[in-house]
Structures are given as C-alpha cells and as structure tokens.
C-alpha cells in the first residue's frame, strides 16, 4: 500500500476519534457487579424473613437512587458531547472522497427543476398509468401503449402539457392572480406547501370543504385578508373594507389528485375558475381545464410536476414584482376596492371643504350680504315683488 494513500484512507478515522482515547483507561476500570443476596425464607423464622425483606427493600431503594443519579449525569453530559460531535464532524467533513451527486429523496421538493425533461419524467415514473381495465377512454390520446396490463402514458404528451400548464401558472401569477395548490392525498402535504411557498400561492392539503367557492360568504367569512399594492406592500386604511368585503376566490386551481376532488373541481367549473390537473389513465380529463397526463399515484411523479408548476409560479411573481418596480402593472384594482377608495377619498374631500367653509365663516371673510346693494338684500329676503320698482 502506498503510504500516501494510507494517510488519506485512515486519516479520517484517526481524526474522528476523540483526542484522548480512553482505550487504556478501560484496563483500569472495573465493572462493579452488584450481587444481591437472595435469601431463602426459612419457615418458622418470621423475623429473619422480615429483616431480609427490609434489607432487599433498602437495596432496591439505593439501586433506584443510584440509577437516577447516573441518568442525571448522562443527561448533563449530553450538551458537551453534542458540541464535541459537531466539532469533529466539521473537522472531518472535508476528508475522504467527495460524492458529487447523491440521491436525496426530498431534493426534488426542496429544489425543484424549472423544466422537466423526458428523462426526468421517466425517472420519476410519470409514465405509469393504471391497469388497462380501469382506463377512461377519454385519455386514449395520452396513452402510448400498454405493458404488463398497465397503460403507459406518452411522456411527449406529458412534457408538452406540463409546459403549457406551467405557462398558464406563470402568467396567472404575473397578472396578480390568486393560485391555489391542492393535493390532499397522504404524503402530499410537503409537496403542496413547498410549491405554494414558491409560487406565492395558497395551499390545501386537507379535505376541501364543499362550498368554499359557491358558498364562500358563509364558509370563509372568518378568513383574514389584507390589501396590498402592486409591490405587495400592505396598505393601511382599508380596515372598514376588509370588515365588509366578500371572501376571495382563487383565480387558478392546481389539483394534484382530481379523482378525490370532484366537489372542488365542480365548484371551480361553476364559478368559471380555470383548473390544472394531473390526469392519470383512470381520471376524467374533462374535469379540469388544463390536463397534465401523468401518474398521480407516485409521490415522486407528483412532486416533479408540482415542482415545475411551483417554479413557474415563482417566475411569474418575480416578473410581476420586477415590472412593478418599473411602473408596469398588468392587473386592475378590483371593483369593490376601487369604489371603496373613491368613497373614502370623496368623504375626506367633502369634510375638508366643510371645514374650510366653517373657517371662512368664522374668521371674518366678507359676508355676501356686505357686498350687496340694499335693494338686492331686500329682494333676497322677500322676493322681487317686495322691492318698489320706482320711487
């Protein structure tokens, strides 16, 4: 073995060991073995039995006390050991070979890609459909073929539809729309919340309460809203409006599992809210506006698709804010907010005018009557007939 290599190979172990290795100390330390004298009760000798019982009781108590103290010492040592652990970890993390790319299961959630290639889609198993017997014939245009009795989704179709959906999400975000990410299957919570965070959107990982769109005045009346301007800064002076205004409706709904969200998609259709959905071979593609044919049962597949959509939303938000800095705003103030602003401003102007008028009256501006002729004053008070025309 080359000595140089030996150093590289074993240096890590040497460094990772605590500096003062207690290996030699082990020779000196002796394990204390507690021998408990088990007494056999002698029949007839009641006193001896009682004494033994008392002795074993005190022994047990002492054992318990010792155990408690030992545990306390162990607990007290934890922070010290932890600091040591962190220190050695830092010292040794540069040693050894470098793994350039590791597989981290949640990497796709933490750092989703901006676009999904066919390889990515295949690796995430987006092409796996359902058993052929469960298919919805409306999906035949997305199906590439069948293998082992399951349908294989055409990934060209998936990629194309995914790009279209991403474009939709990006533009809705750019135009200041409210996006809702829905995924309420088990395990979809981290995906949905992360994508909503990226896209500056809302998320739903629990059951959709039926009526949150069609009966929103009742169901969402407790939901808190805020008024923001084009740069997403919160505006003051809208407390009254926020108290009286109606709850908001999403402008786009992204649904990762349409099969379980019939009520939601139906409400969206009634309220003409466009929807994006992951359509597996057993789902009905007419439930959503923008279909993404893909496997919706695999968390990896769903995470990849949602990740691309989340990134698209993020891009849209960034573009919107960048344009707002330049003074370009592609969305209009909603009617109710606009009329509220008009009402408030008109009220303030009226009050100011009244105030000015009062000041004028009180602080001796000339009264109109002072500037009239005597005839005009009488005419003002009693009408034109009261003034003698000739005298």
């Amino acid at each position, binding site marked *: 073995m080359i000595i140089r290599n030996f150093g590289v190979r074993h240096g890590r172990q040497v460094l990772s060991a605590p500096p003062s290795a207690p290996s030699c100390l082990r020779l000196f330390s002796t394990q204390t073995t507690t021998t408990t004298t088990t007494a056999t009760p002698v029949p007839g000798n009641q006193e001896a039995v009682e004494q033994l019982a008392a002795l074993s009781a005190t022994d047990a108590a002492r054992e318990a006390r010792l155990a408690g103290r030992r545990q306390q010492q162990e607990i007290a040592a934890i922070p010290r050991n932890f600091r040591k652990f962190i220190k050695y970890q830092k010292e040794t993390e540069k040693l050894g070979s470098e793994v350039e790319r590791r597989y981290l299961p949640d990497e796709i959630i933490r750092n989703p890609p901006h676009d999904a290639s066919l390889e990515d889609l295949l690796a995430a198993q987006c092409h796996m459909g359902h058993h052929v017997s469960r298919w919805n014939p409306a999906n035949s245009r997305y199906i590439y073929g069948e293998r082992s009795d399951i349908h294989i989704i055409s990934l060209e179709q998936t990629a194309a539809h995914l790009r279209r959906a991403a474009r939709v999400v990006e533009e809705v975000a750019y135009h200041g729309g409210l996006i809702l990410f829905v995924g309420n299957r088990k395990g979809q919570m981290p995906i949905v*919340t992360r994508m909503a965070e990226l896209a500056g959107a809302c998320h739903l990982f629990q059951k959709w309460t039926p009526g949150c769109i069609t009966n929103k005045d009742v169901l969402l009346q407790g939901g*808190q*809203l805020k008024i923001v301007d084009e740069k997403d800064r919160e505006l003051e002076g809208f407390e009254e409006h926020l108290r009286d205004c109606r709850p908001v409706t999403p402008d786009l709904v992204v649904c990762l599992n349409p099969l379980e969200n019939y009520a939601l998609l139906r409400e969206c259709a009634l309220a003409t809210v466009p929807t994006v959905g992951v359509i597996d071979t057993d789902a009905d593609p007419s439930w959503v506006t923008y279909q993404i044919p893909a496997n919706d049962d695999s968390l990896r597949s769903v995470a990849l698709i949602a990740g691309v959509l989340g990134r698209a939303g993020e891009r849209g938000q960034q573009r919107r804010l960048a344009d707002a800095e330049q003074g370009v705003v592609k969305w209009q103030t909603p009617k109710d907010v606009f009329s509220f602003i008009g009402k408030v*401003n008109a009220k303030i102007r009226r009050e100011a005018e009244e105030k000015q008028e009062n000041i004028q009256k009180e602080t001796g501006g000339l009264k*109109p009557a002072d500037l009239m002729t005597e005839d005009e004053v009488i005419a*003002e008070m009693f009408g034109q007939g009261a003034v003698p025309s000739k005298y």
Partner: protein
Amino acid sequence: MASIPTTRRGLAAAMRGAVRPRSLEQQFQALRLNAKGSRCLSTQSFQAAPEIDSVKLEGTIRARHARAVPVSPSYFSRTSRFNDSYLALDKLLRVYGNLPTIPANAVERVSWKTLDDFRHAVGEQVKATDYVKCLAIVKRLHQIHPKIKPAPVIQALNDFKRSVQAFSNETVKKTLDKYGRSLGSGRRKSSSARAWLVEGNGEVLVNGKTLADYFGRVHDRESAVWALHATGRMDKYNVWARVEGGGTTGQAEALTLAISRALMVHEPALKPALRRGNWLCHTRSKKGGEKEAWPREGEKETCVGQEIERFSGSIELSWVSHNGSSLGRVLPQFFSICKPDFCNNQTTNHRCDSRACSHGHSHNCTIQSHRGPPVYRTQRAQSVKEGRKRHL
C-alpha cells in the same frame, strides 16, 4: 318720497347679516371683486389661490393599485391558524430534529392544551386527528435537551401549553406544629370545619362542646369522627374543632373531611385507605339529581378494614363494614350515651329514631345497623361530565 329710501335703508341694514349663507364658490367669487364693489376684475391687485393644505386631506388613499389577498396561505382550509402553526412546527422539526433528546422519563412534565382548549384558543374547529399529529411533533420537540433547545422551538411550544401548569405546582407539605398538632379543614354543603388533631386518648371538642353535646343525632356523631373510627385511631388522638355554617349534617360531614385531612398529617400512610373510603374529597352539595353512592341492602359489602390492612401493616385493625356484621372496638366515651339512631326492629318491621321512639321496644341494638357517612361517589364523575358538555 324722501321717507321711502330711509325706511328701505333701515330695513336693509336690519337684514344685513340675516342673509342666507352662500356657497363657497360664490364667496370666492365675491372675494375676487375689488373693494369698491364694481363688477370688473381688478388687474392691479389680486389674491392668489391658497396653499394646498395637505393636512386637511390626510387619510386619502392615494394607491393606484390595490387588491385583497389572503393573509395565510391556508386560507381555503378553514383551519388556517391551526395549519399555519402545524406547518411552522413541522419546519422546526425538520430544522432541529437532529438535536439530542433526553429520555422520556426525564423530560419536564407539561400539561399541553387539550383539543377543546386549542379550539377555543384559535377559534377553529380543528379535527382531532390533525391535532394529535400536531401534538406528536410538539412532544418530540419538547424532548430536545433543555440546554440546547433553540429559542424558536421554546416560543412555538408555548402556544401549546396550558395557561395553568398543574405539574409545576408544588404541594405544600403539611407538618405538625411545635405542640404536635395538625390542622385539617373540610367543607360540606355550606358548612366549613377546621380540626386540630393531637395525640391523646380520644377526646373530642367541637366548638367547645363534647361530640355528644354538639351533635344530637348519633349518625352525625359517627360521621364526624368516621375517619378515626374506620382506621382504628379513635383512642389515639384528641380532636379540637371549629365548625361554622350550615346544618348539623353538613357540619358533621365537614368534620369528617377535616379530621381525615388532619389525620393524614400524622400518618400519611393512611392516605390510600382514606381515599378509598372517599373521605378526602370535598362533596359540595346534595342538590340537583345526585345520588348517594350508599351501599344498599344486599349490595356488595365494602371492607375498609381489609384495605387498611393492605396499605399499612402496622395499623391496628378495626373492622368496619357498611352493613356490617362485626364492628371493632368502640370507645365508651363516644358511644356510651349513644344508642343507635335507627333500629331495625324485626318484629314491627319499622325504622325509628331512637330519641323519638315510643314504640316500647328496647333500643339495645348493636351498632351493626349503623352505616358509614354518605359517600357521593357519582356526583363528582357526573359534574365532570356535565362540565365537559358545557365546555363543548
């Protein structure tokens, strides 16, 4: 001819000032006329428009773009506040999940908010399953070693702690005073009692009178000292008690509680036995549908004596049973003048009060017919249930 103008002038003078005020525009128009009153605008001197008074128009909304957006990203879930805190905890667990923990038995005990408490706190109908998941994260984070626990974790956990932490309460250990007395207090109905217990030979003074003088009914006398009686401590302690309020039954049963509590200071080992006899709890009132958990005839016999034997081997046994066939020693100074207040006369098959009995039969029944003090077992459980219902 000459008088008319003067009249007119006088009238006009009187009318000046009474004229209806004109609009702001007219007033400004008037101001723009020159001082002579001629209708032509002066080109020589004029007053410029007043300054823009920004103070008066304060509060005007100048935003050109405004829209309403949800405060919480969980807006459409209807439990947005809960979801926000749940996600925050989840994030904390992801960040700080690798910090060392301490064993579960060494963790500081905390009473976490119940589902109802939490629902009240956030004002949302949080689902029980969701709250359980959330609380699991809370408990896991709480297990992080207290010296390493980061501040955000501590802050997040505070939202889930109850406002009153029962586990942090330290019980005040009652001790004997320098004269060897112990003090116990008890209440029942509207009576309250304080009893001082000192080692002695079985004398009892209630408000300065002997037990027999103070309580007319034998039942009450028995109730008052039942804790001593049942544990066989009748001849070992002297009692000096003050009782206030209520009637005789309430006072006697308040004394039961007071004496049993005072007895526990002398002999803490008696606690389980007294607890099983249910003489350590305050039973508030007798009103409102509650029932006495009184063992009726034919019901299973409760043997307090056996329990005492089980819990403290050194106790001298005094056998008590509610429909008791055998009772232990009863000291003469208590019951010498006592006759059983009820007698079950087999021949006449009636029950009567010994003091008012004129049936002619002898009242030399044994104490067998006496019963222990009433035990309201069901009341507490019932009130707890009702409380929960009200809370929901």
